[in-house]
């Protein structure tokens, strides 16, 4: 019984996701006497009616008490977690005991992260985001929600099954030679060829990577690209998995057999503009259905009538990623994401910079300037006069004028947007000047704050117009041509043809405990380099068919559940400021260490970690990079030094003496990050 809901301040449901049980319960409560055709709106109505009092109460509490709800627990252990981002209230519910409060909070933050990647700076304006998340057109809304819902389901599925998403770090295939070859191939052949083609329509490939299931085989960034942050990369992996799900549960050497049975379901089921690309030689539609269990399928069927033909599959996804340049950090810069399936389970992902991305940078600069201005005005109200900002205001004004002027003629498509914004901004300027003159008048300041907000909304509107709205058919090509995409795909396919089967098996048993004979008594470990966001862990095979060292099904399943709960425990302690946890549980002995190193691998002294409040964002890298904050916190005392942060988690047999365990941990840590074992990106 799970549910996730996003609501606006006016108690309007902006998005909802429910599992079949929850949906059934809601429908039972409402008698469920709706006609077939009206099932969807009826369910949406009933869910919004049921949650409306909570949403309204939450908003009342914020308004009048300045405090808002964080969570509810009922006697039958249903958990409700609430979190408000700007004007959007997220509510996550669990009623089957599978998720705790922390899990739900994490889910909320991950959902927010995915929305940010999909909508970019539009999320900064609640007003616009509301319209974006809840389009007037019901068909469009159903399509969007279905996309978000399947993203969320994909995430939940991966998180429950994949160690890399458990600890929120990228897992690489450990095969140094092949990895190196692939990187070289991506660099010399693929990216170079793509970027020199005339068919690229002004786009420039910045990053290219090959995924085998959720694991990274090779990653290449072009020289002028900024690094792709881990949280973005993890989100992109979720998106790629959502488009071309791999059969994680199915450890099947001959996928055709299993797939034949699953092939039956509705075509175009996951096609939300990202489905099986049409022009692709390899028709890999089958694995798409791997996730769909019959219950979900039934619920989804209700949407079928609304399904419209998907947009051109060669159209890339627009994603908004963080970019750090010399000039500074720019979050949510527009990119195009091309997800090209090579074989089931193996995907090539290309990230391109779009030609107009400079506009996004300007928009961000202005947004920041207005946010600062607004802050100054607010502070001014409190008496700490801040007239120092004056030159900046003039500066800002002239720059913005120029920007808007430049925007108009340069791009025909933006015509409408810029005129719109000009109309809106023009009458504001005189007020601006007056305020400048009467800087000390509180009343003016006060009236300027909503105006600032309005300006920010306008900027977000321009941004939306530029990067989010599909300009519709036009003669000018706007992205890599289908032919070019196809060529890239074939190129990589040719390259990896001989390795294909090996890779699929390798991704299942990346490394195994057999490779670590020097550590008797060690059952499992996870090691994470938080500075690069990478992790190494022996694979946990929990299916019946594959026998790993951990034995078959139940035993491995048991160890898996132990590892999952241990990670949760360590995070709780980390939140309370503990960097070391040792724990004896039954026949097992768990250890967890977090430590810092400098660039040369010299272990730095431990410090007291900050203690986070209960409702702080969940510790991890996907939604909010805790470790980046941690490294920054640490390097305050280590100026000029590159601080690296590592985590090691081990599971030993309980009979092993603790001195040996500690010795193991030390040896393991030094062994794992030897350059020869794990080539860096």
């Amino acid at each position, binding site marked *: 019984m799970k549910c996730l809901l996003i609501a606006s301040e006016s108690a309007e449901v902006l998005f909802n996701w429910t599992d079949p049980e929850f949906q059934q319960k809601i429908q039972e409560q409402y008698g469920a006497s709706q006609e077939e055709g009206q099932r969807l709106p009826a369910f949406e109505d009933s869910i919004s009616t049921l949650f409306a009092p*909570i949403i309204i109460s939450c908003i009342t509490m914020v308004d009048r008490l300045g405090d808002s*709800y964080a969570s509810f*627990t009922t006697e039958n252990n249903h958990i*409700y977690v609430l979190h408000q981002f700007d004007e959007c209230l997220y509510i996550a519910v669990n009623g089957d005991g599978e998720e705790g409060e922390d899990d739900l909070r994490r889910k909320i933050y991950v959902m927010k992260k995915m929305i940010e990647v999909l909508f970019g700076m539009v999320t900064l304006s609640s007003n616009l985001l509301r319209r974006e998340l809840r389009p007037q057109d019901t068909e469009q809304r159903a399509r969007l929600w279905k996309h978000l819902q399947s993203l969320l389901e994909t995430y939940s599925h991966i998180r429950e099954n994949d160690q890399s998403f458990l600890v929120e770090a990228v897992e690489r295939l450990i095969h140094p030679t092949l990895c190196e070859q692939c990187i070289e191939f991506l660099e010399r052949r693929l990216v170079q060829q793509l970027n020199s083609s005339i068919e690229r329509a002004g786009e420039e490939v910045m990053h290219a990577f090959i995924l085998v299931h959720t694991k990274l085989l090779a990653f290449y960034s072009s020289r002028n690209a900024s690094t792709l942050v881990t949280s973005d990369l993890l989100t992109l992996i979720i998106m790629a998995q959502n488009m071309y799900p791999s059969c994680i549960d199915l450890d099947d050497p001959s996928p055709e057999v299993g797939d034949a049975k699953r092939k039956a379901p509705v075509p175009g089921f996951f096609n939300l503009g990202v489905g099986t690309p049409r022009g692709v030689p390899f028709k890999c539609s089958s694995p798409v259905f791997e996730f769909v269990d019959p219950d979900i399928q039934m619920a989804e069927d209700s949407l079928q009538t609304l399904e419209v033909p998907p947009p051109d599959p060669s159209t890339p996804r627009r994603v908004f990623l963080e970019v750090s340049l010399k000039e500074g950090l720019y979050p949510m810069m527009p990119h195009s994401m091309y997800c090209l399936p090579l074989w089931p389970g193996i995907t090539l992902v290309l990230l391109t910079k779009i030609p107009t991305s400079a506009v996004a940078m300007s928009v961000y600069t202005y947004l920041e300037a207005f946010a600062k201005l607004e802050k100054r005005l607010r502070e001014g109200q409190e008496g700490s006069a801040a007239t120092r900002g004056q030159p900046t205001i003039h500066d800002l004004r002239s720059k913005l004028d120029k920007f808007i002027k430049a925007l108009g003629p340069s791009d025909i498509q933006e015509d409408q947007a810029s005129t719109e914004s000009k109309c809106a901004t023009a009458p504001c300027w005189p007020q601006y000047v007056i305020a400048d003159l009467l800087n000390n008048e509180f009343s003016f300041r006060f009236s300027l704050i909503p105006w600032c907000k309005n300006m920010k909304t306008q900027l977000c509107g321009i941004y939306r117009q530029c990067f989010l709205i599909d300009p519709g058919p036009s003669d000018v090509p706007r992205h890599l041509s289908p032919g070019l995409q196809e060529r890239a795909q074939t190129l990589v396919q040719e390259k990896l043809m001989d390795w294909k089967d090996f890779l699929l098996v390798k991704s299942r048993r990346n490394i195994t405990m057999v490779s670590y004979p020097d550590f008797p008594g060690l059952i499992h470990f996870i090691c994470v380099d938080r500075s690069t966001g990478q992790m190494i862990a022996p694979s946990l095979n929990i299916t019946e068919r594959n026998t790993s060292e951990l034995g078959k099904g139940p035993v491995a399943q048991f160890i898996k559940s132990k590892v999952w709960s241990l990670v949760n425990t360590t995070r709780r302690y980390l939140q309370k400021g503990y960097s070391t946890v040792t724990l004896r549980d039954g026949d097992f002995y768990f250890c967890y260490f977090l430590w810092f190193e400098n660039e040369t691998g010299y272990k730095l002294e431990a410090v007291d970690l900050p203690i986070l409040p209960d409702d702080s964002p969940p510790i991890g890298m996907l939604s909010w990079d805790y470790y980046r904050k941690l490294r920054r916190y640490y390097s305050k005392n280590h100026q000029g030094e590159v601080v690296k942060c590592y985590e090691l988690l081990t599971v030993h047999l309980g009979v092993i003496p603790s001195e040996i365990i500690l010795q193991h941990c030390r040896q393991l840590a030094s062994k794992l990050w030897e350059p020869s074992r794990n080539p860096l990106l």
Partner: protein
Amino acid sequence: MAELLSPDLRGCTYFFLYDGSKVKEEGDATREGICYFYPEETPMDKQELLCGQLAGVARCVSELSSSSVRVLRLRRNKYAIRRKDDFLWALGSSVDVPTISVCELLDQLIDLFCFYNGSVRQSYQRNSREVLAMRWAQYLSHLQAGSSELHHIFSCLKTIDATNVDPLLLLKAALILQACQRCPLVLVGCILFRGRVVSTQMSPNLTMKVMVHESETYNKAHKPNGPSTSSSSGGTVSSITVFLTMSELQYLQSTPVDKGFKFHSTPHKDTIPKKTRLSRTLSDTPSTDSEPSDAGSTHSSQKVSFSPCLSASDNVFSPDPSENTTDLLHPPMQSQCPLSNGKSSHDAEEDESFYHSFHTNGGGMSQIGDSSGLEENSHLNGACGTVFDFRAAECGNEESHDHKVGEDSRRGSGGSAHGCSGATNSHNESPLVPMTLYLHRVKGLVLVLLVEPHFLSDTASMEEVYHSSLAALNGLEAHLRTIIPGPPGVQVPYVFAHFDCTQSTMTFSHFSLLFY
């Protein structure tokens, strides 16, 4: 005790009782439904806001999950929520306090109210809101006033610092309680000194509840406001009506140790031997209950029974010459000290349970020696119930600083654990049974007995209990007063704290001197 009245209640930020039945229609003001709100000086609109919003959300979530809400967490506060019929209680505290403590505190608070006032609905029909508001405030401040942070978090009983007290005094207190139990109308008792537990036969839950009234009367600042307060024999003795849940009552009336014997010996004894078997008070109670006329005759015969006991008691205490307090203790002890010898003269032949106790007694004496022998001894007379086991456990625990904890105390723990679960399980559903609390005050010392309601009308029993305990109480008070230098005002830094979850007590070891 200033700490009891301190407005700075640890952790608790808000508490309210909201009656949803008063606010049904659109036009009804939220304030109609607010039965009590703490802190009382909170502006009415804020009260209305909190009550309205929290009650509304709790209701809504309950509907969604078809189960009532337990905890509402806000960013800066958390609320434990309880619902019963139309009533909704919410206890707010800061987020640092563990959720489980807040929930427990609220449960205790509601239990306390029901213990002294009966059902909430009825008490609000009978009394004005102002009167009941005072009580809520009193219970709230009582519960909040743990003597330390740890006391508060574990919501444990405040006990006298057993490390400073001669174990013999504790034993003496236990014996007083047992003596009182000879009267079949007396269920259990406890002895408190300056708002702290000296000895108790009750479960921690019940002791906690009983202590509220005592500390209230001990606090001269508070006027006694129990509606049924009636002072009978002089100013020092008083009584009030209290309400027990069925499970609590069953627990008090059930005597696990005894049951076994009863079962396979003679389940249907005629009443005549019972009248003379004064030591087995607990097991007797159900039958006397059902036959009030018979009960009367039991009491009258009881008086007679005391005197042989008196004479016999000397034997046990005299072989304890090492204690220099013994002489002082002696006179009060004599009056009621229940002894194996004394008892055996009465009913050795007819009672198999006695045989059992005699047996254990002998063993204990020979094996462990004096102090543990006394413990065993008390076992005999304590009418072999779990209730008694409790007290034994306490004795054992308190003595453990000096002596090793006997087998007895371990047994006692088991019994009390049973009682706890029984008492908390069904406090919601079970109907409340009125009982009477009898209090006998000697300055700072108070003897609290939970008695059958008709105990008050039974002058003979009352006088007997009064007179038999009076001297002993005086003696005990005199000793405790000299030993205990009042409640510790200053917090000494401690390095070791032990929480006994069975008795719900906290023991601190102050090793601060070691550092100098």
